[in-house]
């Protein structure tokens, strides 16, 4: 399974994703510069964390206009697997590939900490190795992770099981105290209706090895590889 990780100016988790997929999962992976316009030949594109273009205007707001984005959008619309992590999630929202928007964390500060995530949908290509309701331990590091969608969008996300991860307590309760940034419905990650584009604020690449304090993130990437190896086809 061939991965491509997109490097925007200011991306800073691209090498971490590269390491997790290339060295831990031992899957082929290339770095793709934002100026590229061709993403053919890849089975999954990853938009990594960081501060693309400094995030000076609004997180992800400039990156969505990067030269590579039309190709990413075409790839995604054609059913290609796309994973947006942190800043990558923000870019997917700005690009309209996922619904909703990000606001500053409700505490108005950057937050770097371990969080617990409840797996709300284990039928996606990204979550096959988890069981429904499983509690994962995955770190976050962001200043703008306060996900928002209007009531109608939110209702549809819920109805169609597009909420994939929610912040929860270690025992899996979804409570306000377990929410690190104020996101609606404790949402940490969502998927598109077709099920091929996942965006999440937590960083699976940061918990893909025992020495880093956990391996739940590795299972997310491994789910993708499983899914691809099974030759599952979305919508088939």
């Amino acid at each position, binding site marked *: 399974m061939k991965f491509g990780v997109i490097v925007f*100016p200011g991306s*800073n988790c691209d090498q971490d994703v590269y390491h997790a997929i290339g060295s831990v999962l031992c899957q082929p992976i290339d770095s793709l510069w934002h100026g590229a316009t061709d993403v053919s030949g890849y089975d999954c594109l990853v938009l990594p964390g960081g501060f693309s273009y400094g995030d*000076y205007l609004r997180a992800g707001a400039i990156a969505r206009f990067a030269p590579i984005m039309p190709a990413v959008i075409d790839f995604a619309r054609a059913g290609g697997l796309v994973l947006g992590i942190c800043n990558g999630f923000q870019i997917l929202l700005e690009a309209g590939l996922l619904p909703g928007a990000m606001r500053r964390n409700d505490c108005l500060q*950057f937050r770097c900490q371990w969080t617990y995530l409840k797996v709300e949908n284990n039928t996606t290509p990204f979550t096959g190795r988890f069981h429904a309701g499983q509690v994962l331990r995955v770190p976050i*590091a962001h200043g703008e992770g306060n996900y928002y969608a209007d009531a109608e969008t939110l209702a549809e996300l819920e109805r169609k099981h597009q909420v994939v991860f929610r912040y929860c307590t270690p025992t899996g309760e979804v409570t306000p105290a377990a929410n690190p940034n104020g996101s609606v419905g404790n949402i940490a990650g969502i998927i598109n209706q077709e099920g091929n584009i996942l965006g999440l604020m937590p960083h699976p690449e940061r918990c893909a090895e025992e020495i880093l304090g956990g391996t739940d993130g590795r299972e997310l990437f491994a789910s993708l590889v499983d899914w691809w190896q099974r030759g599952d086809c979305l919508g088939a």
Partner: protein
Amino acid sequence: MEPEVYRQMGLTDTEFEKIKEILGRAPNYVEVGLFAVMWSEHCGYKHSRPVLQLLPTEAPWVLQGPGENAGIIDIGDGQAVVFKIESHNHPSAIEPFQGAATGVGGIVRDIFAMGARPIAILDSLRFGPLDDPRNRYLMQGVVAGIAFYGNCLGLPTVAGEVYFDPSYSGNPLVNAMAVGIIDQKDIRRGHAAGVGNAAMLVGARTGRDGIHGATFASEELGEASEERRPSVQVGDPFREKLLIEACLDIIKEDLIIGMQDMGAAGLTSSSCEMAARAGTGMEIDVALVPRREEGMTAYEVLLSESQERMLLVPKQGAEARIKAICQHWGLEAVIIGRVTGDGFLRIKEGGQVVAAVPARALTDQCPVYQVERRLPFYLDDLQNRDLSRLPEPADYGQVLRRLLASPNLASKEWVYRQYDYMVRTDTVAGPGGDAAVLRVKGTGKGLALTVDGNGRYSYLDPEAGGAIAVAEAARNLSCVGARPLGITDCLNFGNPEKPEVAWQFYQAVTGMSRACRVLQTPVTGGNVSFYNETEGEAIYPTPVVGMVGLIPDIEKRCGMGWGQEGDVLILVGVTLPEIGGSEYLAVVHGLVAGRPPSLNLEREAAVQETVRQAIASGLVTAAHDCAEGGLAVALAESALAGTVGAVVELAGDLRPDYLLFSESQSRVVLAVPPAARERVLALAREKGVPAAVIGRCGGEQLIVKINGCPMFNLGRGEMEQIWRQSIPALMAR
């Protein structure tokens, strides 16, 4: 020239005369500006140079000592660690966010200027008490500024320290340390060698920000300091991230002779220092420098401290390739001059020479001042205060609660949760432990990093404070299983023209030097920050030590949290009646007095050796040193960092408060499985180090008895609540 002109730039009449003597003529306005910044205390080290010579700087593993952009230490396998600490105290005092942010930006540039990939940031901070809204504003701004810059760069801020004391009200300390890693073959130095080679400016455009920032850093803070706000630079971490990647690509392709960042004194310092180191000269045409505002004079271009700029001396013929790499990263790269053979820094504007002075006159001929040293009058009384008559506390549980709530000891999570301490996925042990541990991908090695200093000790006895800062840093590294290799130091003091401050400085450096020699941790560079005074009141003398250590096999590392029921607790080292300068004395008795704890460096080295060997032999499940708050707080911290409590039985003739809260040095509490107990005790005996079993891990309570008499019994939950909520509650006021 009117004396007022050069005096306003910070030069004395004598210094002006010396400049005339060097040049053999009167300097023009631009030249006076060059001398004023390069001969400022910040750039010229004119009150510290002779004293700094006392510090040991050599060891077989030191690849680069002081005098370069950063120090370098060999870590084997052809790799090296590059590291340095620097202060940004004055800018942070008046503009905390940008002051701290650009402090991070500047020290990171020093690391990749050597060709190294920056991998981590540490910071050492001091503020006045948090009940003052101004101090809360400063801390909030400084922490947000560090987070803004470091997080955007994608560099983890992995360790640090924060202390509070009224002496830092109005003059906070912001010391930032950066660490990088490099293949030794890629090391570059800030040398402008090769007459005829180009000088290239890479990065941001030059504006009017930060003009005379170095001079500002060389004077006391006062009411007029607010007017200096324009001297504070504004940071653009996104551009610096691009600059890092571009410069490392340039290094990878072996395109340059040397490079240097433009920090204090901007283009002036970088050009004359690079030339002076290589024994060459440099000619710069300021008309070629890209600007972001119109109408800038040559003087302003030369002294601008606009951030995110580097000066490169390319190999001949590499200019076009460098431009192409920079263009890829969206950066400008412009040839602004060339290396000359006459030793002069010659500044042109178009065809016209506007300044011409010997480069070495700026860097090496800066006058050096030996101020008379005088014992401060406060010391005798403070050191000899009779502490034996202090009343004993009635409730030791309450004392421990108060200590855990003291901002100096309370959890610093409020600070570090704003820092991305995990990015780069090498952080194996992050903030909150004795030292941070980073893995080195592709090897089995680990790096251990810490930064330490106790201003209170240094105030009461600067020699002891300096020595303890080094010893404690080394102890922290030993507690994670690392061998200490070298230090970078940030020496924060008051006005060095005052004999009392001169004495403090000399004493502190003497103490550091003594400890560095015994513990074999040479100084590889650092920074001196003088004039930390507000309205004539100096801060506590605060030598801060950043230290790097190596864990040969990262699987053999250690944490401080207790996790195993039944583990035996062994105290390595001895508790003496030493509550002078302690946190207990300050919090419970409201006193900063007495003498700081004594330090026997041979004992210290033996204790650390014992701890390291025990960890390397796999005998230890947790190790934590006794520092501020003494043994009682060390025990509480290990209980909080882990998952179990303990029952501890101490014995001895000391007063209970001394036994529990004395800050005697060279002590480490080890948790070891019962099967390893005898081997650890035997190891200590072999090293000639006292060690005693003091308790056993288990349960949810921390129970401490002395001579069989219960002292306190606190639950982990209660202690955690107090310890974690203290700073957030103060900041929420």
